[in-house]
Structures are given as C-alpha cells and as structure tokens.
C-alpha cells in the first residue's frame, strides 16, 4: 500500500468525519440496529454532498449505460457532484489494469472479485473497509458474499450485483416439441448430459450450448462451475493449493466435455464467440439447454428482445446440486495520487452509489433489481417485497420464482482460484488449455496434472 493513501484516509477522517461528528454519532447508533431507514430521516455517517468540485472518474463496462448515466446524473444534481462516468469497452480487466499501473484518471470502477483481489495485490485499491461507514456496509451484506469480497478480513468494494453465471436454462418449447415435455428436468450434470444425448437421438440437432465461448469469463469459468457443481474444488479456499483429481469432479467434468466435443453436437464456432454471440445463439431458439447468467432469464423471457423464445425459458432446479457459480461485481475505489478533498468526494460518491443515497434508500441497487433482475449483496434489498415482484415478473412459470432463489442460495464461489493474486493469470492459462484440450484431444489426466502444476507454479512465483 502506498503511504499517500494512508494519508488520504486519515485526512478524510480528520476533516470531514470529525466536522460532522454529531451526525456520525447518530449514524453509528442507526447502524447498530440497521433498521432506521423507515419513517425517520436517515442519519448519514457522513455528509454525502460533494465539496471539492474536482471530477470523480467513474468507469465501468458497458451494461445498461443508460441506467448508470441517469443514476450518476441524479447524484451530480442532488449532491452537487462532479462525477465523470464513461464506459470502458473491449478487454475490460486488462484496460483497467493498465490504467491502474499508470496511475491514470480513475477513482471508482466496476470489478469482478478476482480482478479486485489482483488490484488489491498491486496496491491500487482503497478498500471499502476504509469508508467511514465501512463496517455498516459490511454488516448489511450476506455473509458468504462479504467473505468472497474480502481479503484478510477487509471488505474490498461495494455491491454492484451478485448473480449466478451458469444457471442452466431450458427452452421448454423445444423440449415439448422433442417429446420431452413431460419428463422432469435434469437435476445433475450427468443427468443433463444424458438428456442431451437422448434429445439428439430424438432428432434435435443442437440440444446444448455449452459455456465454451471465448471471453475471459467463458470456457474457464464453465470449467470452474461444473467442477464445483459436481462437488469438487479447483484449489483450496485458504491455502490455494491445487485440488483437482482425475477420479474426482474435475476428471468427470473433462470426460463429459471430451465426449460432448467428440460427439460433434457443439458447433466449433462457439469457441470464438463473444458474449453477445453467445446470448444471441440461445435467443434464437436453436438450443435446448445452456448455462447462462441468471439475470438473462429476464432478457430471454422478454418478447421485445427475444420473441422466438420468450415465455419458454425456465431453469433447472437446484434440488440435488448447485448450478453455476457466483458471478458478482463491486464498485472499487482506487488509491491513485489525488488531493485529499477529492478522495473525500470519491468516498461520498461511492457510498451514495454503492450503498444508500442521501435518504437512506438503496436507490441504485433497487433500480438494478427492477430493471434487469440484478441481485444485490445487501440483505435488505433482496428480502424486500419489491425484490419478489421483480423476479416473479421475469420468469416463465410461477414456480420458477422459488427455483431462482433456490439456485441462488446454493451457488458456490471459487474462492481458491479467485481470491488470490494470480487469479487472472490462471484464468488465461486455463482458458487456453481447455480449448486445446478439446481441439487437440489432450488426455484428461494430462490436463489435470498440468493444471495442478500451473497452480503450484503460480503459488511459488507469488510466495503463497
């Protein structure tokens, strides 16, 4: 950590926090119960009005930029802010890393936990724990998510969304057409593959769109979640030692992949897809099953966006095993060189945007839930009636609401490979190796051995 940053947070505490001492006292009582957001005007830990007049650079990837822009506009207008929002497109994590290395103009950014841990390792992040209301924020999160987002017990960022990537979606209409409408939906990966081959026998040419696309969150994440869904781990959550075995879930996953690839059911082009192509492929109704983002259930069931499948997209139940992994993102604050007054504003904006606004409402989080079914890490957001309505309006069948929550609650998080500084490097390596495993028909045992060796190598390189 740079010495300047420590200075900044002290500066913040000294000037702003102490100046509003009385309010802070009131705030901390409110925090104790965490329930005072109703009738009473919410007492802030600190004043959220921006004061420095300097721009706060807020960057994110391109997702519903219209919503983000209008949120930012609201902040700028109501809180006298000067937040400069823009999207960064292309290879997001790499571009951000470059900016961070070079100490570029960047104050608040979106980050997946694996990137966040890496940025933290580079000393480029000011953890959320350093916010005056950091403890309160941490306390209102679900435990598993707070843990996933923490390094050495320090919460890194505030909740943007928490989702499930790899929720197994099913096109009910295609199942009906193939005569499988009355069969219960598969509940395990093995059952799923059996159903896929049965569907193929029944004349369905492309029953499955696997999570094998080319993005950095494509094939490698597909491997991680299938191993975890089958009850395994890629690396130990604490020691980060490799844990894959040929006879275990990792081996089973690769065996299943090899059979699927060699059966020719998966078009090779999938391996070059970006996410847009991946979503459009499932949206076309060509495939019966596919692991997708849980929030895209809404996209697929929306006739304006997905006329060919809308109203027919359900999800596999999480009764016997989990599906997918927790895919989440936070708002991170950087530790770049900047004046103290600006650092104060960065903290104010982040708290307003990533937690509660000046009225004590989770305004941004609630809006995401409503508009895009993006779940939040904050308990009060998820356990509201509004959340229930938002989800129910997005699913194909009434009973799917319970399935969504069930799948959501069971979803694992690959802490062993994500909460470690080499996460992105391993991700790039794994992506390449898995492609090569499929295309060059590498033996399962060899790939697992190499993957374990790579983790060991990375641990050694970084002294873990």
């Amino acid at each position, binding site marked *: 950590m740079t010495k300047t940053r420590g200075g900044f947070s002290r500066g913040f505490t000294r000037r702003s926090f102490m100046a509003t001492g009385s309010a802070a006292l009131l705030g901390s009582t409110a925090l104790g119960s965490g329930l005072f957001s109703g009738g009473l005007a919410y007492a802030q830990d600190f004043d959220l009005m921006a004061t420095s007049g300097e721009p706060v650079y807020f*960057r994110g*990837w*391109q*997702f*519903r*930029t*219209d*919503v*983000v*822009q209008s949120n930012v506009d609201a902040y700028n207008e109501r809180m006298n802010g000067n937040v*400069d929002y*823009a*999207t*960064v*497109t*292309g290879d*997001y994590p790499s*571009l951000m890393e*470059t900016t961070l*290395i*070079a*100490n*570029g*103009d960047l104050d608040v950014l979106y980050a997946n936990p694996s990137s966040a841990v890496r940025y933290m390792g580079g000393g480029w992040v000011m953890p959320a724990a350093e916010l005056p209301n950091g403890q309160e924020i941490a306390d209102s999160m679900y435990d598993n998510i707070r843990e996933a987002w923490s390094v050495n017990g320090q919460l890194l960022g505030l909740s943007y969304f928490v989702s499930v990537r790899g929720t197994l979606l099913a096109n009910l209409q295609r199942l009906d057409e193939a005569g499988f409408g009355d069969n219960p939906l598969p509940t395990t990966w093995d059952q799923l593959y059996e159903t896929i081959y049965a569907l193929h026998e029944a004349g369905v040419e492309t029953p499955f769109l696997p999570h094998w696309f080319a*993005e950095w969150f494509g094939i490698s994440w597909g491997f991680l979640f299938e191993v975890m869904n089958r009850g395994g781990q890629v690396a130990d959550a604490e020691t980060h030692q490799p844990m894959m075995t040929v006879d275990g879930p990792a081996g089973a996953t690769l065996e299943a992949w090899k059979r699927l690839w060699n059966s020719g059911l998966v078009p090779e082009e999938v391996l070059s897809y*970006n*996410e*847009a*192509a991946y*979503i*459009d*492929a499932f*949206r*076309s*109704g*060509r495939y019966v099953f596919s692991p997708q983002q849980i929030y895209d259930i809404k996209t697929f069931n929306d*006739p*304006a*966006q*997905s*006329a*060919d499948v809308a109203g027919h997209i359900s999800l596999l139940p999480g009764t016997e095993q989990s599906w997918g992994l927790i895919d989440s993102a936070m708002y991170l604050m950087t530790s770049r060189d900047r004046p103290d007054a600006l650092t104060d504003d960065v903290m104010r904006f982040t708290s307003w945007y990533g937690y509660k606004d000046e009225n004590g409402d989770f305004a941004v989080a609630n809006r995401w839930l409503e508009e895009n079914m993006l779940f939040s890490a904050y308990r009060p957001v998820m356990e509201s009636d509004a959340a229930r309505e938002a989800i129910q309006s997005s699913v194909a069948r009434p009973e799917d609401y319970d399935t969504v929550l069930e799948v959501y609650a069971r979803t694992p998080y690959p802490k062993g490979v994500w909460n470690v500084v080499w996460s992105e490097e391993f991700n790039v390596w794994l992506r390449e190796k898995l492609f090569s495993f499929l295309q060059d028909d590498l033996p399962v045992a060899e790939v697992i051995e190499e993957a374990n060796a790579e983790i060991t190598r990375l641990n050694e390189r970084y002294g873990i």
Partner: protein
Amino acid sequence: MTRSRITIWLVLAIAVALIWTFLPMYWTVKFAFMTKPEISRFPPLLFPPDPNLASFFNIFGSDYTLADGTVVPASGQARQIILGLRNSLIVSVVVTAVTIFVVTPLSYVFARMEFPAKGKLLAAVLLSVSLPPVSTLIPFYVLYVQLDLVGTLFGLIIITLTITIPIVAWVMIGFFRNMPPIEQLGRIDGFSRLYIFTRIMVPMARSGIMVASVIAFLFAWNEYVYAQVLVTGSTAVTLPAAMSGFLFQAPEPGHLAASIFLSVLPPFVIAFFLQKHIAEMNFV
C-alpha cells in the same frame, strides 16, 4: 484500354465484383434495420423482414416506437457515439492536414534529390511503419500518463501521426518519382528550390496529394488499437472506441451495425469523389 464493349463476361465480372464488395457489408449493416429477435433468428434471415430505423435513433439517444407499438429504448452509449463522431472528425482532419504538410516536401526530397546519407534517413522514416502498436502500447501509455496526455485529442493526434507519416511517405515517394523531370527547367530558369517546389511541383502533384490525403484520413479515421487504450472512457473517445461498446458484455448488434454504417459514410463520400482523379494519377 482494349475494348469498351459490354460483353456478357464483363457483366458477370462486374456482378461478382459487386457481390464481393457489398455482401460482407450488407450482412452486418442489415442488422441496423432489424429488431433484436429478427437479428438472432436461426437460420439467419437474408433480408430484414420489416425494416425499421430504430437503431439509428437509439444510438443518438432517442427512443423509437415500432409499428406494432413496441418502444425500442435509446442506447446509453449515445453520448459517447456523438462525442466519438466529433472527435474522430477532429483527429482525422488534423492528422491529415499535418501529415500532408510534412510528408509532401519530405517525399519530394527523397524522390528527386541526391544527398549524402539519403538511404539511412529514408530507412529511418520508413522503418517506423514497422513498429507494431501492440508492443509499444504499454510504454506509450506510461509516457502519456506522465505527460498528462491520456484521454486527450492532442495525445491521440500525436500518436496517430506516427502511423500516417511513414505510410503516406511510402506512397508519395513513389508518386514524385514518376513525375517528369520538370524542375531541371525550373532550375535553369533560375527559380529557387522553394519556388520550384511550391509553385511547380505541388500544383503538378495535386491529384497525388489528394490521394495521399485520403489515405492519411482513412488510417486516422479507422485507428482503434491506440484509441482503445488511450481514449476509451474519456471525453476524447473516438468513434471506433465508442462503437466497441456494442460488441462486448451486452449484445446490441443493431446499434453496432448502425454505428458502423455511420462510421463508413465519411470515408465513402471521400472515396467516391476521389475516383475522378484516378486517371491523372501516375502512382508508385
């Protein structure tokens, strides 16, 4: 020029050339006139079943209501697309002007004069074209942060010049070489070198200079690799960088197609006018 008759073979050849030219563009640009469900239909549609202009309104920040009453919401990238259009125009025009101003005398000198160390100097200019952007990106970025040039049009213009100058020089030198040795006459008449260059050579080379301008303009207009790193997410964003937002994360093929369509319009117009000069060009 052999025949100017229209034979069946000529017609066929033209047809093939036109399909070759337009099919790849059409295939994506048609998305701009289709709805999301139509775009993702499988098997893919050959023609937009019910063309609409929604995407063009969306990328400029307006909602659009389809005939059936569905509202297609405006894109959140609109601000960046508009900024990108403006910035791309500024960068391209400035880069073109500077490139031509610098490269015309440079190429003239290399093409038509003998002087010591000519080969080495020429090599130095031309070799800079060989520098792959990927390998200098991070050093450039670090340098730019130190100079406070990240996210500025000025910074982008500087870096784009390093691409256009060598390429345009390469082409222009060839052009000047092929011009008649007119300056001998000029020298005999006692004109100064500068006079010969500005009053005789430049006017004679007009069409060549125009072509070179178009080349410079296109390289500047289409630059993405540097722009992606240096100006995305800033107010200096250029059109290709702004457009790339439609490609990743959330699919907006319609918006992407509409903005690509827009992005090729200015070069199209320029290229179209350029072909009139084709006969006057005795190039390379």
